[in-house]
């Protein structure tokens, strides 16, 4: 059982490590990491704000022990959307290319395939998280001096703890988004449909619903996952976001597992 899951993991990794996907994804991660970190510091004196949705993040806030990870935490949503696209495409393409039948002939244990694929994509998410963390913290450190932001507290004991906490939170958030992508891939069986629906939901529908009725932000799944990355927000507590996300992710995973194991493979 474990041996076959390990084999599935490495088989999936062969697909994930292909240069077009790995370099392309990490390129996007690097681009957004540089963009958000630069924006945070270069717009520090802007009256329009330098944070998400016009929020002002001051020098004093950036000089705290959490200052090093401020940009990294706020990029969680963007990284999540990238993860959703990758997980959805990797899963749905097995249906659209017809390769799922090859996989199932070589490994008929469908739950094992799901577990092995997910494990491989988790490692991919770890790499995304680490690359983004290094770039965000690096760019922040490079720009801090020029904008009179003190970095004295960034790498002391509290600072390192903040970095570790943020790494974990962003990783959990990315993984949640990715699992939603994987579930969409299984349900819709088409990379384009699953990515479109996922991105439409996160970027348009949740924002519209949230703008119309702000209390719904306490319940919308994308907002919960984004809140986990930032370690909690003014409106939604970290524990609420974490527990609600766990419920959403578990429920969708159960549905996807049942579909994946019971559905005929007829394409």
């Amino acid at each position, binding site marked *: 059982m474990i041996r076959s899951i390990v084999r599935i993991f*490495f088989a999936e990794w062969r697909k994930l490590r292909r240069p077009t996907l790995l370099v392309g994804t990490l390129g996007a991660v690097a681009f957004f990491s540089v963009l958000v970190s630069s924006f945070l510091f270069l717009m520090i004196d802007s009256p329009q704000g330098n944070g998400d949705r016009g929020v002002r993040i001051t020098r004093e806030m950036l000089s705290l022990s959490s200052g090093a990870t401020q940009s990294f935490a706020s990029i969680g949503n963007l990284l999540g959307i990238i993860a959703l696209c990758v997980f959805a495409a990797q899963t749905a393409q097995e249906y659209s290319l017809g390769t799922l039948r*090859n996989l199932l002939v070589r*490994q008929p244990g469908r739950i094992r395939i799901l577990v092995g694929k997910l494990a491989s994509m988790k490692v991919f998410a770890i790499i995304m998280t680490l690359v983004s963390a290094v770039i965000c913290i690096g760019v922040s450190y490079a720009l801090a001096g020029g904008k009179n932001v003190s970095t004295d507290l960034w790498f002391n004991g509290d600072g390192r703890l903040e970095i570790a906490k943020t790494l974990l939170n962003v990783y959990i958030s990315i993984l949640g988004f990715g699992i939603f992508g994987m579930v969409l891939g299984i349900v819709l069986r088409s990379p384009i449909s699953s990515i479109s629906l996922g991105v439409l939901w996160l970027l348009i529908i949740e924002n519209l619903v949230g703008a119309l009725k702000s209390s719904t932000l306490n319940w919308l799944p994308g907002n919960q996952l984004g809140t986990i990355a930032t370690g909690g927000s003014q409106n939604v507590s970290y524990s609420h976001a974490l527990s609600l996300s766990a419920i959403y992710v578990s429920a969708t995973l159960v549905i996807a597992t049942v579909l994946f194991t019971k559905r*005929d493979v007829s394409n």
Partner: protein
Amino acid sequence: MSNLAISVDDLSKKYGTGLAVSHAKFEVPLGTICGFVGPNGAGKTTTIRMLLGLISPTGGKGEILGAPITSPDKYLSSVGAMIEGPAFYPALSGAENLRVLATLGGFPQERVDELLKQVGLADRGKSKYKTYSLGMKQRLGIAAALLPNPKLLILDEPTNGLDPEGIQEIRQLLRSLADNGTTVFVSSHLLSELELISEYLVMLRKGEVVFAGPIQDLFDQQQPFMIVKTEHEQDLPKIIAIAEGAGHKAHLRDGTAHIEGPAEWSGTLNKLAFESGILLTQLSPQLPNLEETFFELTGEQK
């Protein structure tokens, strides 16, 4: 252990209200090449999918290499398959695609290079799959099916897209695999090819098995016939009437009369035609072949 590679009894698959496969029953002995034929939509691919555990039967049972088809994990490690044509990741090379499957199945990676050589793709193994021609894709699909060194090889239209030379190579490959003890279950529209290599045959029509057994038994059930052409096409119905009057089944097909009867009766037919003032321009006694038999049993138009 049973000497059957495939055994299917009362196997059915229902989609909506229609039966794609209806109470199919057939057996394929170990070490043989078995052709699997039927018109489009006859249920061949559905049957193959059930044999490989990709879809669940609605009823009936089946066994592959002695294990029930409801437990594909018990036999798939000894089965190679290519269903509905080759399916691979376009952005990976041919070799890398095979390595994905070798890793998944726990087969040695060295087997990838051996197989690429065996199917004639050694020099294109590093090229991306999306750059392959249809014939090359087909060869890669066959290589993937051979990865586990299978006891049973199930191939769905393996010669699609291959040139005559490629078809001949595949025929030789299947023959050599069978000679080494591999059972080959192969569906194809190239009936003349199947006739050359198959010892057994399963024929489907509208989801039902219309024949299953040694191919020679099928031919033994069929009547020899004659293909007859007349100087004037309007004389063909008269020839059919003459043949039927003599107790032989006859029908028109493609501007000729097909008349059942042994070759020895051709002289009598020629004489009867001459006496009726009809000049025969062709009178060819034929032995039944798979193509003729297929059209006969499946009711398909040639």
